[in-house]
């Protein structure tokens, strides 16, 4: 007997849809049934617009019938709830946007629709994508399908959990300091942050505009590459968009490991890395060495300041971006004393604790007397860090490290320790600082929980990073699926 539809890869589904072995409607129904069966425990989705999903599936089938549509036509994709979807609530998991229904589609959503890819519900996140556990959602907890007492990671926790629970083969997240790669690692998935500017940010509700990037989650590198191709390309609606072609997938499977040179920064192999994570990561490296990969320790000293630079730059940008939420044109509006009181009460009540904390720190570091000591200095350290990576790329194909210092932690475990939560991103932050393409793939299990391995490369080398990740994936033992449902 063949695998149930929900357990199949996007590439297999796409092939079978094109060959008329299965219809887009059947594929959508199988995944909706899977959501009904598993989401009461997992909590990945904030909104599941069944009628729209079935209408999209019917439209996809009509495209397939006419021989049209893109390579993933008819395949369902979960969408992080900070990506604008016309006519479907987009809340950023915030009370402030609880009733907001965008009148337009983000560019990535327009691209999906044009190719017949089915937008399959809106996934939970840390409010405004600020967090590493999904516990900062104003609406619900999302649980890790590998162990329902643990976090899926964040901020794109819902987009990771839905793919791990086989509710969808693919999803979109956003990554400002690791928000795709960290949950991908904690849920045993592939998660890719493309080069800054290769995927349009138009319609992504902004957090840290110089760092934010939309990217895919999947269970295989091939699936992630196919969705990267579908969403990338120049967009005149995003003034930071790079004038390059969409990410290509034709050479995905032609990479070789022999003679590959990878650099491993000492600063990402500190005592912060849990012993189990380190052991799993190192046995993955041993397998790669046997395949002919050269792995060399390097020193990139500025990495140790990554968390500091990130928690200055990202909140500074956030405090400016989130100033638009004033309750005038959309969103919550509450009464206060005078017009400033209205705005302050709306924001004080509408934003959750972590969002307010980041607006506060951002406002502080940008305020008179502190700007140079914090914000300017952080940007100088950012420049140093990027220089160190760029000089490493002259001698190596890519930089390799663990993605997360720990496996999925228990829900509530770090709730009273916001600083410890913030330190979890130290391996992922440098790629955002440099705009580098960076991917997390499963490296194996530690105590029955997934461990992620991260590859980061130069600006614009998205195809090469995906190709290396594919080659690594073939050399490493296959990751099982979590035993649920």
């Amino acid at each position, binding site marked *: 007997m063949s695998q149930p539809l929900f357990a199949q890869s996007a590439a297999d589904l796409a092939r079978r849809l094109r060959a008329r072995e299965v219809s887009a409607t059947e594929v959508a129904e199988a995944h909706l049934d899977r959501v009904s069966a598993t989401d009461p425990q997992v909590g990945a989705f904030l909104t599941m617009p069944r009628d729209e999903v079935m209408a999209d599936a019917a439209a996809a089938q009509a495209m397939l019938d006419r021989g049209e549509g893109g390579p993933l036509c008819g395949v369902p994709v979960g969408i992080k709830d900070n990506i604008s979807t016309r006519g479907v609530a987009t809340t950023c998991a915030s009370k402030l946007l609880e009733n907001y229904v965008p009148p337009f589609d983000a560019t990535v959503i327009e691209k999906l629709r044009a190719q017949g890819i089915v937008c399959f519900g809106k996934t939970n996140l840390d409010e405004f994508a600020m967090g590493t556990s999904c516990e900062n959602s104003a609406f619900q907890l999302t649980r890790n399908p590998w162990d329902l007492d643990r976090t899926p990671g964040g901020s794109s926790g819902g987009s990771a959990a839905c793919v791990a629970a086989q509710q969808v083969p693919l999803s979109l997240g956003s990554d400002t300091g690791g928000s795709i790669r960290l949950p991908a690692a904690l849920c045993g998935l592939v998660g890719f942050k493309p080069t800054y500017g290769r995927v349009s940010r138009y319609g992504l509700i902004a957090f840290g505009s110089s760092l934010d990037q939309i990217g895919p989650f999947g269970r295989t590198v091939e699936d992630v590459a196919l969705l990267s191709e579908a969403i990338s390309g120049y967009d005149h609606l995003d003034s930071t968009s790079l004038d390059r072609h969409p990410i290509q997938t034709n050479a995905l499977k032609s990479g070789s490991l022999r003679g590959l040179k990878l650099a491993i920064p000492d600063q990402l192999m500190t005592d912060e890395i849990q012993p189990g994570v380190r052991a799993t990561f190192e046995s993955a490296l041993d397998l790669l060495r046997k395949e002919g990969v050269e792995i060399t320790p390097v020193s990139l000293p500025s990495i140790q300041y990554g968390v500091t630079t990130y928690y200055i730059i990202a909140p500074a940008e956030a405090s400016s971006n989130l100033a638009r939420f004033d309750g005038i044109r959309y969103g919550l509006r509450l009464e206060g004393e005078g017009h400033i009181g209205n705005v302050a009460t709306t924001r004080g009540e509408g934003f959750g604790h972590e969002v307010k904390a980041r607006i506060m720190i951002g406002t*502080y570091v940008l*305020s008179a007397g502190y700007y140079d000591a914090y914000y300017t200095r952080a940007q*100088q350290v950012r420049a140093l860090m990027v220089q160190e990576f760029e000089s490493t790329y002259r001698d190596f194909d890519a930089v390799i490290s663990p993605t997360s210092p720990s496996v999925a932690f228990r829900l509530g475990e770090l709730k009273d320790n916001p600083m410890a939560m913030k330190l979890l991103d130290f391996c992922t932050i440098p790629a955002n600082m440099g705009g580098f393409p960076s991917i997390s793939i499963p490296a194996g299990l530690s105590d029955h929980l997934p461990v992620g391995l991260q590859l980061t490369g130069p600006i614009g080398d998205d195809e090469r990073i995906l190709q290396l990740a594919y080659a690594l994936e073939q050399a490493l033992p296959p990751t099982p699926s979590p035993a649920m449902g």
Partner: protein
Amino acid sequence: MSISVDEVRHVAKLARLELDEAEILAFQSELNALLGHFQDIASLNVEGIEPKPHAVALRNVWADDVARPSLLRDEALRNAPVTRAGLFIVPQIIED
């Protein structure tokens, strides 16, 4: 370097955030923890290094000055908390 309760209130005012006393104290301790962490870059020598505000610097990105389809008025107003006669109704800012 540490931040006082009064500074927390001042920053909250700049950020247009109405906070209660418990939140002010919580943010004081969280901000102090972060500012303490930030000290790691205070003594770093960054002299002469050009600040990097953006990962990929682009210059002069212009849009052609041509009309494009845009939202209909009703669509643009649909999410507004209060509207009247096709307009956003804003809170009163000038006394009677």
